């Protein structure tokens, strides 16, 4: 409705101004309250983050302590088992040489001795596996000639491979001047585990230790004609967590791969499988 005189026009505009001023003041009060609430909420949030972080820290320490306790327990039990096991082995040894009319007792004793030795080896390797948890020995690595390393491996394993009906061949793909940076003993143990697996699982034919180089690494591959390393070998490589280890009836494969992996990683090498049927397991070692 139009205002008829200037005074009522001014009065209307003044009312409008009052309204706008009040709206602005209200908006500012609401915004300030909101900002203060936000600030307080943030403060509370920071305190909660600190509390949670502290709780997580405690939980992590507890979990780490539990893990260490578990490892220590396994190591302890392994040691404890070895003492009576040695007693069993020694007495079986004595029994095999004792007088026995038809020799049957000696055969049984020998069989028992083989089993006890297998058990002993299992515990030795289990102990080694536990010892190597989180081990990093890359600082101690030194140059090792690749061809000499492979040659000594082959000569060590040829007899055992032959016993299993396999021909073991070293296929030197790198020149005699090539060296890798590693610890010979640990790397040897790791390859031993792979060869042990290969000799066990290759049904016939030959096994080849092949070497090759890439940019900065030497690859030592064990190619076999048996079922090879299981596809999900990483899972098999964690036997303590119930990892899947196919062909377990042939014995010790899960621990072997797990141990080989820890051994390789402790000296800065890495382990893997290749080939459609996983007929090859390999270890890649840094070049010296």
């Amino acid at each position: 409705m139009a205002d008829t005189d200037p005074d009522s026009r001014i009065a209307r505009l003044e009312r409008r101004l009052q309204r706008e001023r009040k709206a602005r003041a209200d908006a500012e009060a609401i915004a300030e309250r909101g900002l203060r609430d936000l600030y307080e909420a943030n403060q509370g949030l920071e305190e909660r983050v600190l509390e949670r972080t502290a709780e997580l820290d405690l939980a992590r320490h507890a979990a780490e302590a539990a893990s260490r306790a578990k490892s220590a327990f396994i190591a302890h039990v392994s040691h404890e088992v070895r003492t009576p096991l040695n007693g069993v082995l020694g007495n079986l040894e004595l029994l095999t040489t004792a007088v026995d009319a038809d020799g049957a007792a000696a055969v049984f004793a020998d069989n028992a001795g083989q089993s006890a030795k297998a058990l002993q080896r299992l515990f030795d390797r289990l102990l080694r596996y536990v010892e190597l948890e989180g081990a990093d020995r890359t600082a101690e690595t030194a140059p090792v000639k690749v061809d000499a390393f492979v040659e000594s491996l082959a000569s060590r394993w040829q007899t055992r491979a032959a016993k299993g009906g396999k021909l073991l061949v070293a296929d030197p793909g790198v020149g005699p001047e090539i060296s890798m940076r590693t610890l010979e003993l640990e790397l040897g143990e790791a390859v031993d585990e792979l060869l042990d697996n290969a000799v066990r699982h290759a049904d016939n034919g030959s096994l080849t230790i092949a070497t090759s180089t890439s940019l900065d690494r030497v690859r030592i591959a064990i190619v076999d004609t048996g079922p090879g390393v299981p596809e999900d070998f990483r899972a098999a490589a964690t036997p303590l967590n119930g990892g899947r280890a196919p062909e377990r009836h042939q014995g010790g494969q899960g621990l072997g791969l797990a141990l080989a992996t820890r051994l390789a990683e402790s000296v800065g090498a890495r382990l893997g499988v290749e080939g459609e049927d996983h007929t090859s397991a390999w270890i890649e070692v840094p070049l010296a």
Partner: protein
Amino acid sequence: MKGVIFNVVEEVVVSLWDDDTWDDLLDDAGLDGSYTALGNYGDEELLALVDAAHRLTEIPVPSLLETIGEHATVRLAERLPGAAEDAGSAREFILRVNDIIHPEVKKLYPQAIPPVFEFTEHTDDDGLVVEYRSRRGLDALAIGLLRGCGHLYGEPVDVDRVAGSTSTFRVSFKDA
């Protein structure tokens, strides 16, 4: 009801009529009228304003709410940058109201209590059957707002009440 609705209603009244009309509506409804987008005000203040508008113009209250709603959509959408562009069409914009548009509104106005829309897609054409659910019962305003979605994209959007229901509407889209 959020103050932003009152601000938008004021903008619509001023654009359809003028500033003085808004003053007169406030005076007639006995309202202080200092609305800020951040504040909350009683639903009855909006209804008092519409009643005052009805007394002034003699237009029925539902028609007034539809008209205000239709002109309010574009202004509300301007306060949510990107919302209209992201949807791309009136139909898509309407379908996004519950899941995208209103959650965005809640970010700006945490205490807002937006209505919920239930959608059924037509089988014979691209249209929608929309059920409006709100404790406010502002179905006429909802019809206007739905119609206003067409203005966002320059496409005609028809909204009709489904016979026998106050809160169910049939929305039709025509190719622009």
